[in-house]
């Protein structure tokens, strides 16, 4: 009952000094808002990175050839031509593997009418779409039949199609790749990736066609393997390693291949962005701390200004604990109200940033609860000292205070 009365008293006091209360709360508002917003930015960035990595193919293992040796000189990793189409076929027989897509790649000039571009030509199989998480925008993808017949058909990446000025109407049109005519059978959906290994800027042709027309031999540049479940990735990796060692007659010290794990990449990216989130939250909590000191400052000034009031209250029967409660509740009200406004502002800012950055609205209830609890703690920590000072005032001295 009495606590409620003291809350009412504190609120009416704050109400009579609205400007000061508002300015004091501003510190907490900024602190809490920046914690909420920056944590949301960190989480949004994590989600953005994760979704882009997942776009490269889920549960993806990439088998790359090892380094080539020229005498005693070791070449770059992947420079050996140790993987064959047969290796890919053999990997496809391992249990728990959803798809295998051997890949051959080369650079070639692509000409469509009056436009041309030099891009990556990838020779692969029908499984490529599933393994690399590619979807077709118009037309159709490579088929087993086109591979079997080594047909001169091409599926264009979205960027390549744009560069060549080809749209939906390009289906059936003839383009020239490395001087050879190919029929366009499909255009891929854009994946929004960028950089040197841009999956939107490539031309897919049947593996057999690529071997006949551009590369020769039965060697492949890499083998993409899609594992059925994320849990099976480690097992699949071990099984592929064992299989290839057996097929290539290696024993672990002289492996002529390596297996890249998408999950590893994902894990690294996630730990980096978690670190980023912690860093951002750390910076933001400094402003929360400064806001708390602002509250303490105002409360100390307030205790000094209201010394006489405290003396009067003590004379008419207030105990030290009543005075302590009154000032503590004022500090708590400032920090909690500031915290709540800060949460609303922070959620608003994070929604805005999410909208601009394109990863959507990230709402984290944990952050909101932590921010609310933290502002409560700030109120108690920075309110207790001024409140104790008020409570311990000598009533006689306080009454004499002018």
């Amino acid at each position, binding site marked *: 009952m009495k606590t409620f009365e003291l809350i009412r008293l504190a609120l009416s006091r704050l109400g009579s000094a609205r400007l000061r209360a508002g300015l004091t709360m501003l510190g907490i508002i900024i602190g809490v808002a920046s914690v909420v917003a920056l944590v949301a930015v960190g989480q949004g960035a994590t989600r953005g990175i994760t979704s882009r990595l997942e776009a490269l193919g889920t549960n993806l293992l990439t088998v790359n050839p090892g380094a080539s040796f020229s005498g005693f000189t070791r070449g770059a990793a992947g420079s050996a031509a140790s993987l064959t189409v047969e290796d890919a076929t053999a990997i496809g027989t391992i249990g728990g593997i959803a798809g295998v897509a051997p890949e051959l790649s080369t650079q070639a000039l692509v000409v469509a009418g009056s436009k041309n571009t030099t891009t990556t030509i990838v020779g692969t199989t029908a499984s490529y779409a599933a393994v690399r998480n590619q979807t077709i925008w118009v037309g159709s993808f490579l088929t087993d039949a086109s591979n079997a017949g080594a047909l001169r058909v091409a599926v264009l990446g979205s960027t390549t199609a744009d560069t060549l000025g080809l749209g939906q109407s390009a289906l059936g049109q003839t383009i020239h790749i490395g001087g050879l005519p190919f029929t366009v059978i499909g255009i891929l959906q854009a994946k929004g990736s960028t950089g040197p290994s841009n999956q939107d800027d490539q031309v897919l042709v049947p593996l057999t066609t690529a071997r006949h027309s551009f590369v020769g031999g039965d060697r492949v540049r890499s083998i993409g393997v899609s594992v059925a479940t994320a849990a099976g990735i480690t097992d699949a990796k071990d099984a592929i390693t064992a299989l290839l060692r057996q097929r290539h007659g290696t024993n672990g010290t002289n492996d002529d291949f390596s297996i890249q794990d998408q999950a590893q990449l994902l894990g690294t990216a996630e730990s980096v962005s978690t670190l980023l989130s912690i860093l951002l939250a750390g910076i933001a909590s400094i402003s929360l701390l400064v806001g708390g000191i602002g509250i303490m400052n105002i409360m100390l000034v307030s205790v000094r200004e209201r010394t006489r009031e405290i003396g009067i209250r003590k*004379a008419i029967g207030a105990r*030290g604990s009543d005075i302590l409660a009154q000032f503590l509740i004022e500090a708590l009200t400032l920090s909690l109200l500031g915290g709540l406004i800060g949460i609303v502002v922070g959620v608003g800012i994070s929604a805005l940033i999410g909208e601009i950055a394109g990863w959507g609205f990230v709402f984290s209830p944990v952050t909101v609860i932590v921010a609310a609890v933290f502002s409560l703690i700030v109120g108690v920590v920075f309110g207790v000292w001024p409140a104790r000072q008020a409570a311990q005032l000598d009533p006689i001295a306080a009454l004499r205070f002018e």
Partner: protein
Amino acid sequence: MSGSDAWSRPVPSREPAAWGGAPAGEPAAWGGPALASDSVISLRGVSRIYSTGRLQVPALLDVDLDVAPGEFLAVVGPSGSGKSTLMHILGCLDRPTAGSYRLAGTSVAELADDDLARLRSRTIGFVFQSYNLLPRTTALENVAAPLLYQGVDRKTRLARAAASLERLGLGDRLAHEPNELSGGEQQRVAVARALVTDPALLLADEPTGNLDSASGAEVMRLFDELHEQGRTLVLITHDHEVAARARRQVHVRDGRLVDGRPAA
């Protein structure tokens, strides 16, 4: 003075039961049988010595004083005589360094700060020279404030505060803040606040010191009325004219009570 039970019920009251405001079920702290024939105030050998470093400054020395229920006593002395210190001790705002003080039967020396606050809240009503009303707070809330610290619920608090103000003719000033009231009105609000808890003792420190003579006379008339209603009043003043209104005077000089005899 009239009989020893006079303070517990107004005797020659023009407004019967006017101040018997304590609701049933809430016995006043001073209303115990042990006090029935006791003094409201009983000081025995009370000294208050201020220690500043090695220097010892006696503000009060060996004071004996008794105030019977229903008495109207003036403590008179020039500034620096120790009468403020005496008032602080009487008001339980300060504790004697030596001697014993019993207020309404309770020995003050043994009380912790919180108990002292409770005793103040239930037993004493203060009236100060500078009114000491809470700023930016309405007259009604000011008068209700002491009841807050007694844990009285808001509705009862405001009702009792309004009743107390109305008895002092301030019924039309309930919503006014101190800076909207004249000095005389502020002091009447302060008296209303002092009386709202129905205290055993009304302690007034230079109540007319800041008032013009008309308002001062009005406040003194109020004290006369309260005395007639059976209140125990202790008035601290340097003004002999004011002191003359009391039924009994004691003089403080250099920390000693010069004349503690009851008036004839």
